[in-house]
């Protein structure tokens, strides 16, 4: 063969962490090779993975720092850009103090980059650092943290194939993590039962033995109903409960009245199916519960996550191979970004900022003067956006696109416009970057090396394959340079991502054994916790004890609460949002990929045939969806795969989140994305 051997990188899209072999010719990514020998994906790649090259070589990539001027964008040199940024940041610090500054970190960046962002923010005295995990799995952290001691997937995804029963709650694995779905299919081939609770008949539900099409926002009632059946019929694992958990009595009392008939009334799922689901899940020898944003993106996200964990705990389906609890993450490094403490209330390694010992430890480790780290938790993503232009005067957004991803996005846009200084670091001139004062060009995944942690806690090293286009730079370099200009040079002495990883190993015990050399040679990465160099990593969590103080899991009682906005006479339908297979989150990457966008080019909403008939809508009509916050126009797709009364819209298009509610889960601060009351209006005079 000619040329250099392919470079094995980790796919930049979802959290499965597939390997992608890049062919490099003349310093450019020329093609990709299926990584057939990879234990992660065995050569498989989804459509987004295949299209990843279109992002690296995209003509619209930013190549120079851009500064806003009266006449539009002006390309400036890096020196000038960084100087400007440092000066503006210093001005804000001087005038308003560190609380007026906020950092949006990114789950698309490596562990090292997230670590640096939070370190810079905290060194400046601000805990206002957060990232998009707040919008997807924050409730997992607040829910599972106190129960199990750790808010992460308990098993490797490949463990799914050993399960005899897979229960999906609000997760559409087939569409969102296609490559991981092969393990589900494999389990099914071995005779496993698949249960899917989802208001839509998603591709995951196509292979389900039992599909529970519940009303959006009623997952908690369904889970409570199932727990009632389990206790009623004595299907719980009493030995496991006695040995490893606390608080079962309170839980049992709380589900005393939540019988299947009650749950059926609330969820719209026949009681018979709830009973059947409970029996199938509880009786299986090995069962897995997979949940996703259908559970977390609710006002009651934390409670629902806890109900999921309760279900897994009382049946003993946790802490064994093939039995686990899987909060499936969306982004390639959302797990890592959380581990690195890019969260307003948590320091690296999930140590709370309110803990004085933790603060002292990090002040020592980082060589900062005592008292530098702020004790109060900072603002979360949604709070930052609400406070932007008011309390928050300066925002540094790295690889985030809040104008598309935030709920009630119209208000977010207004707020961002009022900022004194908005710095955006991104690959493209995104919807958010268009509002910025300064835009810095970042390097894509193939243009920088770094470690990334996928959804089953495996830390993988992704090496650099090519140089960034033009003057674009990797995020870690940008942050280091910015820190130097802010006068923190001695605290940011990094010359490469490897240097940063060495520091991470010292301060985050779970990453202790992950030397750059070891990561680079581990074929499928190392699952944390991995405390030292000889430790093989931990594929199954909670095998012998939970990560709580006394090693016992806490069971939490369930209290059912209704969704904050129920359909009424004016807004008779329930709008729910989700992903489609060809697009990814804000669409900043996928909507720019010609091959993906051509197959799914426009926004659509799915409507049940009966509802469509009532509204006089036909397939392909233009329809206006109106909520109390705004309206969007889209093409109507009439399909029987959504339940009656439910309207579904994918959230990859900027229009969608103008409609969603900005009410937050009180502890996780995650917004209610999944339910909103809406009405449908036919748009006159426009054909398909």
């Amino acid at each position, binding site marked *: 063969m000619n040329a250099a051997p392919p470079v094995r990188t980790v796919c930049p899209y979802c959290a499965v962490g597939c390997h992608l072999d890049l062919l490099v010719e003349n310093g450019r990514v020329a093609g990709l090779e299926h990584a057939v020998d990879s234990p992660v994906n065995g050569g498989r790649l989804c459509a987004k993975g295949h299209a990843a090259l279109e992002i690296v070589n995209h003509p619209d990539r930013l190549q120079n720092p851009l500064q806003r001027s009266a006449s539009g964008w002006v390309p400036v040199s890096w020196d000038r850009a960084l100087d400007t940024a440092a000066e503006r940041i210093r001005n804000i610090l001087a005038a308003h103090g560190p609380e007026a500054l906020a950092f949006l970190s990114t789950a698309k960046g490596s562990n090292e980059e997230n670590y640096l962002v939070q370190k810079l923010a905290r060194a400046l005295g601000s805990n206002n650092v957060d990232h998009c995990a707040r919008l997807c799995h924050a409730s997992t952290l607040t829910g599972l943290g106190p129960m199990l001691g750790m808010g992460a997937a308990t098993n490797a995804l490949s463990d799914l194939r050993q399960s005899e029963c897979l229960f999906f709650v609000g997760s559409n694995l087939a569409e969102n993590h296609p490559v991981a779905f092969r393990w589900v299919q494999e389990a099914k081939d071995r005779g496993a039962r698949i249960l899917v609770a989802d208001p839509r008949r998603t591709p995951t539900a196509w*292979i389900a033995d039992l599909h529970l099409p519940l009303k959006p926002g009623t997952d908690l009632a369904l889970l409570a109903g199932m727990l009632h059946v389990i206790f009623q019929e004595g299907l719980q694992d009493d030995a496991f409960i006695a040995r490893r958990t606390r608080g079962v009595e309170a839980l049992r009392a709380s589900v005393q009245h939540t019988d299947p008939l009650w749950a059926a009334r609330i969820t719209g799922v026949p009681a018979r199916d709830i009973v059947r689901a409970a029996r199938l899940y509880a009786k299986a020898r090995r069962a897995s519960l997979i949940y996703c944003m259908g559970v977390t993106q609710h006002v009651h996200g934390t409670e629902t996550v806890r109900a999921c964990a309760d279900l897994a705990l009382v049946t003993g389906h946790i802490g064994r191979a093939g039995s686990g609890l899987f909060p499936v993450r969306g982004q390639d490094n959302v797990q890592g970004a959380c581990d690195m403490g890019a969260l307003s209330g948590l320091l690296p390694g999930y140590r709370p900022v309110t803990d004085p010992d933790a603060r002292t430890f990090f002040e020592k480790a980082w060589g900062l003067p005592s008292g530098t780290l702020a004790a109060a938790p900072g603002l979360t993503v949604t709070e930052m956006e609400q406070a932007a232009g008011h309390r928050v005067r300066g925002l540094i957004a790295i690889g985030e696109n809040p104008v598309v991803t935030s709920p009630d996005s119209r208000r977010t846009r207004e707020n961002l416009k009022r900022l004194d200084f908005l710095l955006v670091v991104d690959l493209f001139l995104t919807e958010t970057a268009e509002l910025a004062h300064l835009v810095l060009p970042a390097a894509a995944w193939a243009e920088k090396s770094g470690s990334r942690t996928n959804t089953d806690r495996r830390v993988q090293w992704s090496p650099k394959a090519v140089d960034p286009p033009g003057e674009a730079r990797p995020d870690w370099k940008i942050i280091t340079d910015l820190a130097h200009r802010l006068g923190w040079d001695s605290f940011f002495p990094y010359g490469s991502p490897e240097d940063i990883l060495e520091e991470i190993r010292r301060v985050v015990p779970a990453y202790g054994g992950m030397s750059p050399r070891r990561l680079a040679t581990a074929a499928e990465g190392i699952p944390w916790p991995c405390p030292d160099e000889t430790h093989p990593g931990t594929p199954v969590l909670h095998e012998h004890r939970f990560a709580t103080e006394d090693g016992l899991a806490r069971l939490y009682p369930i209290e059912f609460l209704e969704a904050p906005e129920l359909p009424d006479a004016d807004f008779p339908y329930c709008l729910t949002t989700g992903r489609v297979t060809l697009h990814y989150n804000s669409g900043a990457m996928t909507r720019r990929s010609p091959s993906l966008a051509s197959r799914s080019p426009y926004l659509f909403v799915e409507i049940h045939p009966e509802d469509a008939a009532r509204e006089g809508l036909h397939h392909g009509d233009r329809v206006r969806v109106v909520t109390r916050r705004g309206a969007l126009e889209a093409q109507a797709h009439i399909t029987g795969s959504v339940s009656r009364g439910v309207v579904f819209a994918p959230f990859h298009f900027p229009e969608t989140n103008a409609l969603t509610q900005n009410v937050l889960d009180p502890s996780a601060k995650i917004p209610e994305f999944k339910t909103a009351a809406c009405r449908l209006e036919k748009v006159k005079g426009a054909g398909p």
Partner: protein
Amino acid sequence: MNAFLHVDFRRCTGCFACEAACRTAHGGACRVHLAFADGLPVPLMCRQCENSPCAAVCPEEALVWDKTHGVVLLVERCTRCGLCAVACPFGVLSVDPFGRPNVVKCDLCLGRRAEGKRPACVLTCPTEAITDEPDRPLKRRRLAGSVPPIAARPFSESLPAPMGKEGGVQGGFRGKNPR
């Protein structure tokens, strides 16, 4: 491998990986088409018909069926008249009068197979819905019993017992073990 790709569309999740892989492998036009019936996907590509209508109508006999390669285009004979595209009952063949390649159809990844690799869509399909070894899915289907996955049914009225628990193949022949 057999000279056709076996599609078990009941396993397809409509993830478009096959289309993307095909585009990557052939650099351009895609030869796999995901068609949808009421929202459910069916991947379609050249079926490599052994007595194929496209070959039958070709005036130059440029399309021939071969035991190992399926329906092969002999480029030097082809005049790009486009009759094959009209004759193909599955609509998976198209002719570009001026472009290259002239006939766009699944060639079972001829180039990749020459290098000892499997066809791109087969390799990349996450659920093994497309395969070049039909024996595997057929055997799997025989063992899975008579009823295909519930797939489309909203509520399963009866859940047959899983394999290997209560013995024998369930729900299969009328002559089920009475025990």
